[in-house]
């Protein structure tokens, strides 16, 4: 492992519920109190209707690969030991999309349309990253 630290989320009052959720093995996102839109990335207001009020709702953690790429180039030396690694844009069943990694399969075997489910990777005491793995694994 490289001893160069990987980037970590900056946890703030606004984002803490998301990271508390992943630490507790749950993927949660903000749902607008007014129009019910589930939004991601995390933000102060609903980008559909600008309502501030929201609740953090648990998602199924299931979805499908919307786009899949494989990093061979090392842009940040913290990832030098990881290449080649997959990054996927994941379409969650409840509507939002997020970037993450599909793990548990060789990176170049991840295909657009593959069904995936969330897995939780504790990378520090405070931060557990949501990643994804094939649904049937």
């Amino acid at each position, binding site marked *: 492992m490289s001893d160069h630290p*990987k*980037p*970590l*989320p*900056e946890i703030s009052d606004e*984002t803490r519920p*998301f990271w508390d959720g992943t630490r507790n093995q749950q993927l949660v996102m903000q749902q607008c109190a007014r129009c019910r839109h589930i*939004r*991601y*990335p*995390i*933000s102060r207001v609903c*980008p559909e209707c600008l309502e501030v009020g929201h609740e953090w709702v648990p998602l199924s953690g299931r979805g499908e690969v*919307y*786009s*899949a*790429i*494989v*990093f*061979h*180039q090392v*842009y*940040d030396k913290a*990832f030098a030991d*990881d290449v*080649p*690694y997959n*990054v996927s*844009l994941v379409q969650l069943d409840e509507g*939002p*999309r*997020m*970037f*993450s*990694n599909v793990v548990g399969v060789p990176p*170049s075997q991840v*295909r*657009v*349309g593959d069904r995936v489910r969330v897995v939780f990777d504790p990378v520090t005491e405070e931060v557990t*990253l949501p*990643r994804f793995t094939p649904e049937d694994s």
Partner: protein
Amino acid sequence: MHSLKDRTAIIGVGATPQGKLPGSTQLSLAVDAFKAALDDSGLEKDDIDGLLTFPGTTAPEGPLNYLRVGEALGIDPAFTGSMAMGGGTAGALVQMAAMAVESGHATAVACVFGDAAKTGGSRFNRASGWGDSWGIWGMMGAAANSAVAASRHMALYGTTSEQLAEVAVACRRHASMNPNAVMRDPITIADHQASRFIVEPLHLLDCCLISDGGVCIIVTSAERAKDAKQPRVLISGMGQAYTTRTLEREDWWYVPHQKEALDRAYAMAGLGPQHIDVAQLYDNFTISVLLWLEHAGFCKPGESGPFVEGGRIQLGGELPVNTAGGNLSESYMEGWLHIVEGVRQLRGQGGERQVQGAETCLVTGRGMTLNCSNAMVLTKGEA
């Protein structure tokens, strides 16, 4: 909307040598490009009363770049500013210049860019996304966003890496006819396939260069450009559009705003894809050219892969694209040289790579995390 159709013209273009230029700085390149464009235009320095700049990646003063460039050139402008939209900046600034000229805020506006990105070590490796950056998952660098688009396009439409290679091969062939291009040795589809992966599905030869260089474009009224030193090139249509949302837009990867920008430019010009003789399409990565071809109506959505096969976008083909070599092979001037090449083609100054009888040129630009786009229809003004 008040139409700017044929109201303004590009009267001067200039570029420095391109590539690796040790000892150059953002400022020295910007200044040299300005002098070259001024000379090309036949105007005097005191004629320039508007100054718009793009700080690039190496101007230490960032968005205050207009002050530094203005001081170096000894210009106290009536209208000025700097803007940063990556590869979308050049077109946005030229369009802003045209609006300033039309509204009387300035009579001749110099749009200036310099960047010592190669010798300055710019890596273009920033993670995209705000706040909880995508970098957490190792999603970083400019190539990744275009790789997302390529992966999706391939899955939906069966587009192949060999079809992407057609774009790289065409740009390189055109660069081989451009004395100021950085990469001039012809390549084949096999060379493209053999080049290493950067972010799969993109190979090294799907990616643009990183270059030092400067470019300047001077805009004035169509009337004033009439009896100028150079043949007149009119801005007949212009349009812009932006998708600031990324994950929240299901079709973000497909850069739908590009079509809006193009439709606006076509509508203003009263022209369509069937009228375009030559196109300079922003090519940070090969996939970008495919998406532009679809949005610009040269082929249907999903059909750009087969469209580029068989040399159709090469000189001598149905639609010559990036006739100077583009960002992929001429130099990575973030789209500034695309406008310069459009002007040169319409003036008939393309030399070995001239598209015979070219009277209309489509020029596009796109920047940031696939967010910013613009398009212009340039036409040959009557003598």
